[in-house]
């Protein structure tokens, strides 16, 4: 071994085993704690396997029955998966719409040489901060502030703006708005920073020449900034969407896991969480996870395509 090291050609071969040694911990841990559980998840999805009180039902092979159940009407007269998919998408949209609009504006403000905004570091630090806050604590704070006996209601009643306390957590519009507001606050700073970096990576000379040609800032935005920012914009948008699919902590804590009122704020992961709770319904949870995997895979595919086009 030692002797062959002197020859350049065999050198790379003799070192190659080190490559495997260095990547071994990653793959051992990945196999045990992620890959095998993933296979087990898929496997479970074809079995009837849950807990009813103290008795464990199954595992019994049922083919695609869990998938059928997933897409069929429940006793309340709706298809849960469609309803919760709709909820998740809607809750993501009402947060993401202001998030991307404001973030785009701020990114343009911060990068504008004409405006020359001072104190950028301060503003960036402040608007990014909510992103790092424990989502469950943030949600609990909103609950405390907006509950029937909370300070918001006290203010509304004492100032005469409302005759009696508003049940913010009992109405669909207010619950969804609060979730949207929290998601917006937690993510617009992050998006601003990413879009800003995207704009800064555009060649400065392009803006310079457009300015010399007498283009207005609207023209510059639609003809230079936006087309060149597109790959990054799509990347940020889709990763936000993938994050949206995983939305859990905020609605879970705000509604105490019930998606009040009437499951109008139950998200897909809250639904999954219900299966994994006391009932330990590995069969249905498995089928739901497989579906989640495919949705994410499609979205990730779009991300990779946009990155590679760049």
């Amino acid at each position: 071994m030692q002797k062959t090291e002197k020859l350049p050609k065999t050198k790379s071969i003799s070192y190659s085993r080190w490559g495997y040694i260095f990547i071994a911990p990653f793959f051992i841990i990945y196999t045990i704690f992620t890959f095998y559980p993933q296979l087990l998840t898929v496997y479970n999805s074809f079995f009837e396997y849950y807990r009813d009180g103290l008795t464990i039902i199954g595992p019994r092979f049922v083919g695609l029955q869990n998938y059928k159940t997933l897409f069929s009407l429940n006793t309340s007269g709706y298809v849960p998966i469609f309803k919760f998919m709709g909820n998740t998408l809607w809750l993501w949209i009402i947060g993401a719409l202001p998030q991307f609009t404001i973030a785009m504006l701020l990114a343009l403000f911060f990068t504008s040489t004409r405006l020359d905004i001072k104190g950028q570091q301060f503003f960036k630090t402040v608007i990014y901060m909510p992103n790092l806050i424990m989502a469950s604590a943030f949600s609990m704070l909103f609950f405390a502030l907006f509950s029937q006996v909370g300070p918001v209601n006290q203010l509304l009643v004492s100032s005469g703006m409302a005759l009696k306390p508003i049940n913010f957590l009992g109405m669909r519009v207010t619950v969804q708005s609060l979730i949207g507001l929290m998601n917006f606050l937690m993510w617009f700073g992050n998006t601003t920073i990413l879009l800003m970096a995207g704009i800064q990576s555009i060649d400065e000379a392009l803006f310079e020449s457009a300015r010399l040609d007498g283009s207005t800032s609207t023209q510059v935005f639609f003809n230079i900034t936006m087309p060149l920012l597109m790959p990054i914009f799509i990347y940020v948008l889709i990763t936000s969407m993938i994050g949206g699919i995983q939305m859990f902590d905020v609605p879970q804590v705000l509604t105490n896991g019930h998606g009040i009122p009437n499951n109008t704020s139950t998200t897909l992961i809250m639904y999954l969480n219900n299966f994994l709770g006391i009932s330990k319904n590995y069969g249905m949870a498995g089928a739901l996870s497989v579906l989640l995997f495919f949705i994410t895979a499609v979205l990730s595919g779009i991300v990779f395509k946009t990155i590679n086009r760049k």
Partner: protein
Amino acid sequence: MKKDVNKSAELKLLISRILVYAILVFLAFLCLFFFYLMIINSSRSNAQLKTGFTIIPGGNFMKNFSNAWHDGSINIPTGMKNSFIVAICSALLTTYFSAMTAYGVYVYNFKLKNFVHIFILAIMMIPSQVSAVGFIQLAFKYNLTNKLWVLFVPSIAAPVVYFYMYQYLQATLPLEMVEAARIYGSSEFKIFNQIVLPIMKPAIAVQMIFSFVGSWNNYFMPSLLLNSADKKTVPIMIAQLRSADYSKFDMGKVYMLMLMAILPVMVIYIILSKSIIKGVTSGSVKG
């Protein structure tokens, strides 16, 4: 005529500047307001809190702190200890082993090199919840619930951190350096631990922070795996506050518990905000 145009342009610029600063100040206010309120409310007694909003702190900060710290049903000192163990171990393991994996793929030429790199990129986007079902099943089967190590050991295999480390190595580590170290007779592990790791310090620091924050705030998996009182982490305890009958609660204590839950991350952020914000962009957009 020309002068007039200049003047109106200048006025327009001034107005848009004022408008932009107003928007920025408003958004900054919105971000800070809720946390300010949390801090103020954590210093007020339950009776004071029943009177509504105020911007002046009450005098009950220490009393609320002691009440929260010694609470009978929510053992926050234990929760914080557990959260610290999980978050610190995750941060250490994920950065060390991701750097190691990235180094292995970057420096050595082996048959599966390209496959490994592409494989890790491909699994990057799979949400952790997809493996949750099997993970929970195995944990219950092999009696691994209420074990903290089950929460941090999986962080050894972190595709996102790997990707960041790989990019950093590409940008900073010339292969000749490794060759040179070999000529001096260093072993492969020694080269990695004593030469490469110090070069990667900035990348490791950034990823340590993000990993710490991520596991400190993590709620989904811990809530499914930890149910004994002495193993619960902070987010589980915070969620517990929500399910308790809040009308009977001392709200001063509740705000104090929330403040305790976010404080470690806030302190880290106040000290390291500059490098954290830099870290947000360097890992993701370059992709």
